[in-house]
């Protein structure tokens, strides 16, 4: 039975693909429906930095309805799309139009996907609320006075409000999983190297991962399977075959035989009671589905935050050296080359980017390198070993995504450390390079979504997605929609 056009955007990505494959509506009609919804809701959300309406319609008209992904998606503005502006949320890339498309995006386009626009992000993906964007503040569709999380907050808000069925994000320390949790979505940070980084504007090169924010594990699996795989243009991309991602649930105990570890270090005093209660209920539900739940220990968890805030800024200070007003972006005019550099950078980088560049520069500077950067790299080994040891005892780890639900816009003001603490449960997976999946498992007392995080061994995204899918077959948290249509 066909649905009326105004209900198409309520479909999950998998459902919308099936409807297009069956001829219920065309890629062009669906793209029209998304653009109409964007026109209505975007003024309240500020999810996008660039909306490519005409280009998307032109592309949709040419899209083969039989292709695997014949519908519009949104792309976080740190991934390049040829001939579409890419600012990374920064004034230093104002007006930059990249001459090439990121591999992850290109693979989806080859599968039929239509890029409808670029989504808002903390400047160069540095932040946990999207408030560090130089252009606008994105609002959480569940409560417009709150942040959507970050740094992939624009993508999260766009999918949560059903402006698009799925969107791409990037995750260096939690930037897919935390906004997915804040907005009630399923967000996958793949294994480091699983999805190519070519065309992902580098922040912390040893940590950066491209991934997807979607409405269900099934949706995330479809998009992920089309993006993953070795790329000769990225020397750090992994050459490991992708297992089949046909998610199926059998019997009343579909998780029988699965061992899930719950790390004691992830239930600390700073965690909100509503988050702790909801996460524990979800883990209980996984055991009802047959999983065997046991407590495990990741003893170096408390060092993940200091390790991350040395390694990521150190890498950022090197990566962002390329933004100097010479090859791209605007230039602040000056007499000497030195002044061009310092003025362009000093005037066009935002405060959080400047802080991290300075922190990284300090950690790498003569006299401090061994004490900071060297020590952090060794501590990173200990964090990686924690995971290796736990994955000898259990198949995967279940934990909170973040200690809080979505917080009010402006709540962390000018206190960078308070903001950094938002990422304490997501940073370890980036440091160890393991995959992480966030998916919605309930609400707190304010009606805000709470996510559960699953982490698995390298290259076992299939396991994370399978478990989340089994959970989503017996619950409907992932189908709850924000009240944004009621206003």
């Amino acid at each position: 039975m066909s649905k009326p056009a105004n209900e198409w955007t309520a479909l999950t990505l998998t459902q919308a693909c099936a409807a297009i494959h069956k001829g219920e509506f065309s890629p062009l009609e669906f793209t029209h429906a998304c653009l109409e919804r964007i026109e209505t809701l975007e003024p309240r959300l500020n999810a996008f930095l660039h909306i490519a309406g005409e280009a998307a319609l032109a592309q949709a008209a040419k899209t083969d309805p039989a292709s695997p992904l014949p519908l519009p998606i949104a792309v976080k503005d740190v991934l390049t799309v040829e001939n579409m502006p890419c600012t990374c949320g920064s004034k230093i890339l104002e007006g930059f139009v990249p001459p090439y498309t990121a591999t992850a995006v290109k693979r989806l386009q080859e599968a039929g996907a239509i890029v409808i626009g670029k989504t808002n992000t903390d400047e160069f993906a540095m932040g946990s609320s999207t408030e560090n964007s130089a252009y606008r503040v994105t609002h959480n569709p569940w409560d417009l006075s709150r942040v959507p999380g970050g740094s992939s907050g624009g993508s999260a808000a766009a999918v949560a409000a059903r402006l698009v069925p799925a969107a791409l994000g990037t995750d260096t320390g939690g930037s897919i999983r935390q906004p997915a949790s804040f907005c009630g979505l399923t967000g996958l940070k793949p294994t480091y190297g699983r999805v190519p980084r070519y065309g992902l504007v580098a922040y912390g090169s040893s940590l950066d991962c491209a991934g997807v924010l979607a409405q269900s594990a099934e949706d995330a699996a479809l998009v992920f399977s089309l993006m993953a795989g070795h790329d000769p243009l990225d020397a750090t991309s992994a050459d490991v075959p992708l297992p089949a991602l046909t998610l199926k649930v059998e019997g009343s105990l579909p998780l029988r035989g699965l061992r899930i570890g719950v790390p004691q270090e992830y239930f600390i005093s700073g965690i909100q009671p509503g988050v702790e209660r909801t996460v524990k209920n979800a883990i209980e539900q996984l055991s009802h589905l047959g999983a065997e739940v046991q407590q495990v220990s990741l003893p170096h968890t408390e060092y993940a935050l200091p390790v991350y805030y040395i390694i990521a800024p150190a890498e950022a200070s090197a990566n962002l050296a390329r933004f100097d007003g010479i090859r791209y972006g605007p230039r602040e005019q000056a007499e000497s080359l030195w002044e061009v550099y310092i003025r362009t950078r000093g005037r066009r980088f935002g405060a959080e980017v400047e802080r991290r560049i300075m922190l990284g520069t300090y950690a790498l500077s003569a006299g401090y390198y061994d004490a900071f950067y060297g020590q952090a790299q060794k501590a990173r080994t200990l964090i990686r070993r924690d995971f290796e040891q736990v994955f000898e005892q259990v198949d995967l780890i279940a934990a909170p995504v973040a200690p809080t639900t979505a917080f009010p816009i402006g709540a962390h003001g000018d206190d960078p450390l308070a903001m950094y603490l938002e990422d304490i449960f997501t940073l370890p997976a980036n440091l160890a390079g393991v995959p992480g999946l966030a998916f919605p498992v309930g609400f707190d007392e304010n009606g805000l979504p709470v996510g559960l995080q699953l982490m698995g061994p390298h290259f076992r995204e299939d396991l994370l997605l399978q478990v989340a899918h089994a959970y989503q077959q017996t619950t409907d948290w992932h189908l709850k929609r924000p009240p944004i249509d009621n206003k």
Partner: protein
Amino acid sequence: MALTLEEVDHIAALARLELSADEKEHYRLQLSAILDYIRKLQELDTRGIPPTASGLISATRLREDEPRPGLKRDHLLANAPEKEEGQFKVPPVFDLDGGR
């Protein structure tokens, strides 16, 4: 241990950032607080532990070192704030007075 203003000046110069006096003082306090927090790492005994430089390196493969087509020069120059004769244009690199 708080950073001094001289240290902030030095870091800003290394990082090629022009900062106002207010910004310097503001960052001095914020960076000092962050450094105090991350000094927690010094308590960890890492003797004999090898460093980890990447999320994963064991499964990577280098491509053959063969010439292949790259991006076109005019496409790469299209975003340059100033260009001349197919090249990026910059102020004098060797500047005896304006440089540092």
